[in-house]
C-alpha cells in the first residue's frame, strides 16, 4: 500500500486552530471537564500559542511566530505534531516495538504494550508525551498523533481524512498518497521561489528518510521553528541497533560458554578425581 502523508502549506494557514481541537474531538482527549472555576490551569504567557506545549491530550498545536524584515512584520503559523518519520527515532528506540510503522507509513503505537519507559524522548522533534500515574507518579503511557490510525479510531482505514485535515478551512492541510503530495509540495515551493520567497523550503521531503507530514514553507525551516537537519540521536540508534542485540549476544554467549564449561569440567572432574563414581 502506498504511503500516506499530510502536506501542510504554511502560506495557507490562518491559525484558526480548528486542527488543534479537531484532534481532541476525534480522539476523545480532555474528556473530563473541570467542575470548579478556573479549573483549567493554563496561563497566557504572552502569546496566542496556548497551551504552551504538546501533552498527552494535545497531539497537535498551532504555533505562532513573529518576525520583522525590512520594517515589514510577518506573522507565521506552523503545525506542531508527530512528523511520522521514515527513520523514526521512536520506532528505533522502542524496546517493546510498541511504536511501529503501520502500513500507511504512519508511526502508530500500541497503547497496550507501551510501558512508558520514555526511551522515545529520542524523537528529534520532541513529540512523544507521557501520562503519569496519579498515585505512583510513574509514567504510564506515551501519547502522540497517529495520523488518525489508532485502532478503533482509524479514520484512514474508513476512507476518511485525518480529523485535522478534514477540519482545515483553507486546505492548508492536505492528505493523500505521499508521492503525490511530494510532487505538489515541490511545485508549490518552486512557485514561492518564483514569487520572491527565496528562502522557501519544502520540509520533510528528505529529512529522516522522508517525513509523512511535510511542510511548504515560505521561509527557512528554522524561522518556522523546525530543526534544519533533524537526526536520530546516536544514543537512540545505539539502542535497538547495539544495546538490544548486544544484550542478546552477551547473554547468549555467556550461557553457551557456561554450558560448554559444564560439559568439559564435569568430564574432567570425573576422570581426574573420582573415576567410576557418579555424582549424586
Amino acid at each position, binding site marked *: 500500500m502506498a504511503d500516506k502523508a499530510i502536506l501542510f502549506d504554511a502560506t495557507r494557514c490562518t491559525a484558526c486552530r480548528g486542527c488543534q481541537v479537531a484532534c481532541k474531538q476525534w480522539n476523545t482527549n480532555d474528556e473530563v471537564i473541570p467542575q470548579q472555576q478556573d479549573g483549567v490551569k493554563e496561563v497566557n504567557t504572552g502569546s496566542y500559542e496556548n497551551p504552551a506545549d504538546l501533552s498527552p491530550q494535545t497531539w497537535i498545536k498551532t504555533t505562532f511566530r513573529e518576525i520583522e524584515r525590512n520594517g515589514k512584520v510577518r506573522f507565521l503559523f506552523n503545525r506542531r505534531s508527530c512528523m511520522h518519520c521514515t527513520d523514526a527515532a521512536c520506532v528505533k528506540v522502542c524496546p517493546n516495538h510498541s511504536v511501529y510503522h503501520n502500513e500507511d507509513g504512519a508511526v502508530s503505537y500500541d497503547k497496550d504494550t507501551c510501558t512508558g*519507559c520514555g526511551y522515545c524522548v529520542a524523537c528529534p522533534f*520532541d513529540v512523544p508525551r507521557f501520562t503519569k500515574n496519579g498515585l505512583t507518579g*510513574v509514567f504510564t503511557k506515551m501519547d502522540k498523533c497517529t495520523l488518525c490510525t489508532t485502532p478503533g479510531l482509524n479514520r484512514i482505514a474508513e476512507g476518511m481524512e485525518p480529523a485535522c485535515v478534514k477540519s482545515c478551512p483553507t486546505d492548508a492541510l492536505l492528505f493523500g498518497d505521499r508521492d503525490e503530495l511530494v510532487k505538489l509540495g515541490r511545485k508549490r515551493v518552486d512557485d514561492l521561489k518564483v514569487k520572491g520567497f527565496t528562502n522557501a523550503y519544502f520540509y520533510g521531503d528528505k529529512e529522516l528518510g522522508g517525513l509523512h507530514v511535510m511542510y511548504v514553507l515560505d521561509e527557512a525551516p528554522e524561522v518556522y521553528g523546525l530543526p534544519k537537519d533533524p537526526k536520530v*540521536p546516536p544514543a537512540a540508534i545505539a539502542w535497538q541497533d547495539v544495546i538490544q542485540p548486544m544484550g542478546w549476544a552477551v547473554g547468549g554467549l555467556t*550461557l553457551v560458554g*557456561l554450558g560448554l*564449561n559444564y560439559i568439559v569440567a564435569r568430564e*574432567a*572432574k570425573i576422570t*581426574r578425581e573420582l573415576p567410576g563414581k557418579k555424582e549424586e
Partner: protein
Amino acid sequence: MAYQEVEKYSKPVRVLHWFNTASFLLLFITGLILFIPPLAIAAQDSWTRLIHRIAAVLLVAAPVIFALIYPGKAARALKEAFTWGSGDLDWLKAAPAYYFLADESAMPPQGHMNTGQKMWWFLTVVFGVVFVATGAVMWFARDTIAPTGFLWAIFTHDVAFIVTGAMLFVHLYLSVAHPLMRPLRTGSWSAMTRGTVSAEYARAHHARWFEEITAATHAQAAAANREKVLVGSHGGKTG
C-alpha cells in the same frame, strides 16, 4: 578427618546478600521486559516499572542501612573489593585450567574471597553506583534533563544491565552448578546459606584466609573464645 566448619559470612552479611539478591532479581526481571518485547504486555499500567523503582530503593537502602549498623564490616568489605595483588594475576592465569580441567595445581592460595569472587564483588559495587546514578537521572530528571542526557543515561544503565546480567549467570553457575562446586554444602552455597564452609574447603580454596584465621587462633592459644572462629562439629547436620 572430622568435619570442621569455618564461618565465612556472618549472618548480617548473608541477610544483606539475600536481600539484595531478591531486589536485584526483581530489578533484573522487570528490566528484562525491555529486552523481551512479548513480555511488555505484562508491563501494563506501569506496575512493573513501579516494582523496578521499589526494588531499586531497597537495593540502595539495604547496604546503606548495613553500613550504618556495621560500619567496620562495610569498610572491610569495600576494602576487600579494592585490594588487588599479584596473586590475583596468578589466579587468573590458573583459572581456565581449574574451571575447565579441574586442575588445581597452578592455583595460588586465596584470601577470604578468591579473585573471581572479588571481581564479581568489585563489579557489583561499581555497577551498583552506575545503576543508581543513571537510574536517578531517569527517575528524577526525566522532565528536566535534555533528551540526549536521558538517552545516554538509558544507554549506560542498559550496558550495565547487560554486563551485570551476564555476570549474574556466571555467578549463579559458579555458585551452584559448576561441577567443582558440588556437593553444595561444602562451598560457596553453604557459605552464603549457612555462613560456613568446611575447613577442608577453606584450606583448599582459601588457603591464605584459612591461614590467617588459624594463625589468629594459635596466637590466642586455646583461648576460650575459640568457638567464635572455629565452630565445633555440626555433626547432626553434616555427619
